[in-house]
């Protein structure tokens, strides 16, 4: 017992980041996500044109020096719209997944902690939600609520609540059998304290890892909804909306579909790579 204080091992968090950055594919994912994030944040300064400004004389201009990635059928600069569209994509996917993590995580955590009949009923409701394909559920919600950024966030969040409830519940079932939870009860801790201080920190990594992966899905759902016209209302630029607009001229101006498609690809790929990397380093079996 005297040699406890010899040398402090590196903190688990720092070791995790170290392992994360030693994996080249994860680094590639971080780079891809950073590019999109930087483009979205710096859109007002990076955009060569106003994304809404119609220049009817230059409509459907190919990529060139004046319009780096060309213009659409209203003569709007594609690069500028792409940069501003990144804001919508990131905002919608982040907000929807963040709320799904919070709401779904809370449902799963409480349901697993309480257990019994309550758990059974809650999880069956979640199974019903899970049985809808997310695009269909999103369509129903947007059709019911009308299309706006808020409603889009609500619709996509709803499609992701059930998976997060499941992801949160499973480890809680294991955790609540562990003696430190019982110790908390014996010490008179409230259920809220046990959940927030003792259960949540033990499942938050799982939720964040899955959140990253699900953000990629949310980006796709948002683009799909925009593509079928249920996304953010025009003229606000969104990647899915740009693809739909470009689709009408796909034969003579294919780039109108290609650029937003590539942008979606970059973001989805980046998020997936980061998510996979996080998955690997947080897996306890992969430690050491």
């Amino acid at each position, binding site marked *: 017992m005297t040699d406890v*204080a010899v040398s*402090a091992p590196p903190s688990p968090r720092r070791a995790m980041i170290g392992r994360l950055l030693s994996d080249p594919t994860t680094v590639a994912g971080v780079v891809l996500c950073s590019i999109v994030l930087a483009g979205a944040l710096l859109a007002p300064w990076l955009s060569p044109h106003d994304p809404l400004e119609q220049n009817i004389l230059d409509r459907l201009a190919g990529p060139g020096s004046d319009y780096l990635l060309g213009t659409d059928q209203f003569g709007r600069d594609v690069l500028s719209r792409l940069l501003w569209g990144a804001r919508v994509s990131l905002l919608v996917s982040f907000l929807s997944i963040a709320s799904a993590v919070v709401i779904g995580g809370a449902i799963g955590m409480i349901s697993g902690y309480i257990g019994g009949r309550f758990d059974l009923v809650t999880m069956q409701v979640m199974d019903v939600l899970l049985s809808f394909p997310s695009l269909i559920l999103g369509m129903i919600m947007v059709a019911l609520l009308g299309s706006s950024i808020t409603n889009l966030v609500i619709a996509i969040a709803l499609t992701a609540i059930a998976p997060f409830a499941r992801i949160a519940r499973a480890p809680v079932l294991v955790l609540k059998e562990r003696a430190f939870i019982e*110790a908390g009860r*014996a*010490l*008179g*801790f409230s259920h809220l304290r046990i959940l927030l201080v*003792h259960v949540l*920190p*033990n499942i938050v990594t799982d939720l964040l890892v899955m959140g990253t992966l699900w953000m990629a899905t949310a980006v796709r759902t948002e683009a799909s909804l925009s593509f079928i016209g249920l996304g953010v209302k025009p003229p606000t630029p969104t990647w899915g909306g740009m693809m739909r607009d470009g689709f009408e001229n796909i034969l003579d101006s294919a780039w109108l579909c290609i650029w937003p498609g590539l942008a979606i690809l970059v973001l989805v790929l980046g998020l997936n790579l980061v998510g996979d990397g996080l998955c690997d380093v947080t897996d306890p079996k992969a430690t050491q």
Partner: protein
Amino acid sequence: MTASELLEVCDLAKHFTVTKGFTRPVTTTVRAVDGVSFAVARGEAFGLVGESGCGKSTAARAVLRLIPPDAGLVRFAGIDVTDAHGSALQRLRRRMQIVFQDPYSSLNPRRTIGQALTEPLAVHGLARGRAARDRAIALLEEVGLPPSAYDRHPHEFSGGQRQRVGIARALSVEPELIVADEPVSALDVSVQAQVLLLLKDLQARRGLTFVFVSHDLGVVRWFCSRVAVMYLGRIVESGPVARVFGAPRHPYTRMLRDASPIPDPAIRGQMPRILGEIPSAANPPAGCHFHPRCPRASDLCRTVYPEWRADGDGGVACHQPEN
């Protein structure tokens, strides 16, 4: 029951029901604890022994209201534990604590030792900030850990050290009663002795009362003054440790005692065979639960559960007790 009794357990019962099947659900009731009564005097160490699955841990948890008992009464210092709610239960929680078997699951891996020790102090409004830290370090010292342990995480400690932290956490709220649920059975033998000595020392220094749950007769014999032997959810014999293990009256107690090894090479190889397995508590044998394994079983034993016969400071539940 005298005034010196700190804990009084009366006809405690805890049944678990399991429903299996969909079209024709079959419900089985497991009588984990089936009418257990005992009393523990202030400052005494009371042992609860029995095979795995006999309900001793369940009884311990029901005493602490960690699981709600189905029937029976638990009185702690005259207060009804089974009926306590809200702040009354909160005050009781401070006075009785538990030490767990598995030191690897008894500490939250994400919280430092300091956090584990100061959290109960904050919850019960005993100390905060600097004062809480000082108290936590004093507790660490009391259980034989250096102050530097305060800022460390559980994974940096061995099983024995973690068990010391678990004991310190239980002591943090200054309880009068400690339920020790197999506190040393997950530890190496060399560490077992250290932890037992620590518990004994704490008992003497703080005047603690112990309910010591164990399957290890040697440990109970050394640590406890009185003992109750459980079989399939019921107490079959109780009394002072020396009497119960020295001259067992219930055949099951005798079997347990004879099965526990004696560190003397001269009597090597005389270990008797224990007949059969412990039956399922979901479907206990009729009559005396022990009769299928009992060498002295008679027809009466196969049909009628024996009454509890009190004798002095204990008793036995057997139709044909020895001695």
